[in-house]
């Protein structure tokens, strides 16, 4: 789960990482009240999970209540690359002497934690990484040992952070690492991490991705589950606990396993069709999950045919077949369903469907055949 900046800063605050004083709101009046209480000048920042909001006019400086009102009115409801701004973050404006970059993530090839620190932070960090990789001090951290203060103190020197910033930065990095590990982040990133003329180091932005697999031990994450998606299909899928991503095509896709679901998209594309979605019903999918998946796809008016591609492993194909029939009893599915069923209990599953087959419920022997059939129906 990607967090909005304000949520990331709230999460940072739990780990005692210094951020600018501020608060989030969805109303203009409240924005003014927040600005009045923290003191001017303030920055009004659009909360969207997409880059380039500054260039789009989503970040504005305000010296007084009138300006806050003007900017808040403009920014709320603004469309930034297809993301509507529902929430703004108001924070005390900071004087900036230097901009750094800091992050922790998983180093997948080496199976260690990877810290990245640079004295050249800011919007151009990707260019820096490309043109002068040595400007980023990489730190490989053994997940068992973790990051200790002496190592962090050496690291800030290696990264050539300004001397007056080093002590505070080292301490902040220890806290950010705690946030990354104990906070179960896939990514904890600060860009820019700033040094103020007064000699203080704090986070001016927050980019946090939480590992959904760890949500069972973080009840506090529930509060972050707001405005996660604009797509009504995705909202519905989320409510039903499905792993769904909306696309623009006409063939609805249901598959088990992310790999097979991706492959199904590929094959539909190769035979001349377009997928309406990615939907992985996962391992252990049962009748209820299948019914929920069909309902979500059925809600998509662009869908002209549905391709159900199941290769049973943990998922048992007879359960899938029952789910399809169960869903057909509960809701009227508008589009024809083409099924390809193989794997665990496939024989039983096909037998369950056999008496119900008609021109709206079709089985095909192979993945490629089924893709062609579904695409043919969708393009007809």
């Amino acid at each position: 789960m990607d967090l909005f900046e304000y949520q990331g800063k709230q999460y940072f605050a739990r780990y005692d990482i210094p951020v600018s004083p501020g608060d989030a709101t969805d109303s203009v009046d409240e924005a003014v009240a927040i600005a009045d209480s923290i003191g001017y000048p303030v920055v009004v920042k659009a909360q969207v999970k997409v880059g380039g909001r500054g260039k789009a006019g989503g970040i504005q400086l305000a010296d007084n209540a009138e300006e806050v009102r003007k900017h808040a009115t403009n920014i709320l409801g603004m469309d930034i690359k297809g993301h509507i701004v529902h929430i703004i973050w108001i924070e005390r404006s900071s004087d900036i002497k230097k901009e750094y970059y800091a992050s922790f993530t998983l180093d997948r090839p080496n199976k260690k934690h990877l810290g990245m620190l640079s004295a050249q932070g800011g919007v151009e960090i990707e260019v820096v990484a490309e043109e002068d990789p040595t400007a980023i001090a990489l730190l490989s951290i053994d997940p068992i040992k973790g990051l200790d203060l002496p190592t962090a103190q050496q690291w800030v020197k290696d990264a050539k952070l300004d001397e007056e910033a080093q002590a505070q930065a080292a301490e902040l990095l220890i806290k950010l690492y705690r946030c990354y590990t104990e906070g179960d982040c896939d990514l904890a990133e600060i860009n820019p991490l700033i040094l103020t003329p007064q000699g203080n180091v704090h986070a001016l932005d927050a980019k946090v991705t939480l590992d959904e697999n760890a949500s069972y031990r973080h009840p506090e994450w529930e509060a972050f589950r707001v405005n996660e998606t604009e797509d009504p299909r995705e909202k519905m899928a989320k409510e039903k606990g499905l792993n769904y991503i909306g696309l623009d095509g006409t063939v609805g896709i249901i598959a088990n396993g992310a790999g097979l679901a991706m492959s199904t998209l590929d094959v539909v594309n190769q035979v001349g069709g377009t997928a309406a979605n990615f939907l992985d019903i996962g391992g252990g999918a049962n009748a209820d999950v299948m019914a929920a998946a069909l309902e979500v796809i059925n809600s998509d008016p662009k869908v002209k045919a549905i391709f159900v591609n199941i290769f049973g492993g943990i998922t048992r194909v007879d359960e899938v077949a029952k789910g399809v029939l169960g869903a057909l009893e509960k809701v009227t599915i508008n589009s024809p369903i083409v099924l390809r069923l193989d794997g665990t209990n496939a024989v039983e599953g096909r037998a369950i469907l056999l008496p119900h087959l008609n021109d709206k419920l079709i089985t095909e022997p192979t993945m490629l055949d089924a893709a062609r059939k579904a695409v043919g129906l969708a393009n007809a």
Partner: protein
Amino acid sequence: MSIFVDENTKVIVQGLTGGQGRFHGLRNRDYGTKVVGGVTPGKGGTDVDGIPVFNSVKEAVDATGATASFVSVPPKFAAAAIMEAAEGGITFIVCITEGIPAQDEAVTYNRLKQEFPNVRLLGPNCPGIISPGKCNIGITSGDIALPGGPVGIVSRSGTLTYQALHELSQQGIGQTTCVGIGGDPVPGTNFIDCLKAFNDDPETKAVMMIGEIGGSEEENAAEWIKANMTKPVVSYIAGVTAPPGRKMGHAGAIISGSKGTAQAKMDALREAGVHVCQNPTEAGEKMVEIVRAL
């Protein structure tokens, strides 16, 4: 020959008394796998369809001489179960559990490497391993595999592993071993581990490698293949048309550069002399062609 397991491998199932553990553990036994015990704390002394259940891995290993474990427990308990297996004397651990936090996986992986360098972990979040006709540990449906070789399969995706087996078996092409390494960020066993083993296995004549978008395991495998592999490799990478996944912010872009896309992976593999195919069926057909020409 097979890699990692064979007909003599004795297996215990951690979580045998649970729904999934029971279903797949019994299926593995029905396939002919030597499933010699189960482990569920507090249920020692009972049995599951004649398979004795023990309170701990240590007890199970002492009583049965098992060397492999099939871990089928919920995500919360999986990391502890893996470590218990290693501490109890198991040397090959297959963990099918989906949904283990990445932080737990990273710690577990490194603890195993440091404290138990001779233990191999397969998974987590993988379908397991099957050496057709000999041993099946995990959730693969045994009837889609065909004994006798000569193809070795290694795959990152569960269901595409079955698809690969199916494509070959349908054409009468058997498999020496099929390894599902799983798609989690910290896999215990990677492509290169399997490619090495297949390269050294005299009965494996060709290898099918199924990858997917994300990470850089396929690119690393391509480098290894180019330098070391003596057998033909056919590959399929899922996700050419996949919607862009979760953005990992600047950090992701910095680590991976252009790596991670299906195109980058296919280019790297092609450059290494691998036969890269556009879909699982095409990969199956290519492999049939190669095997028939051997």
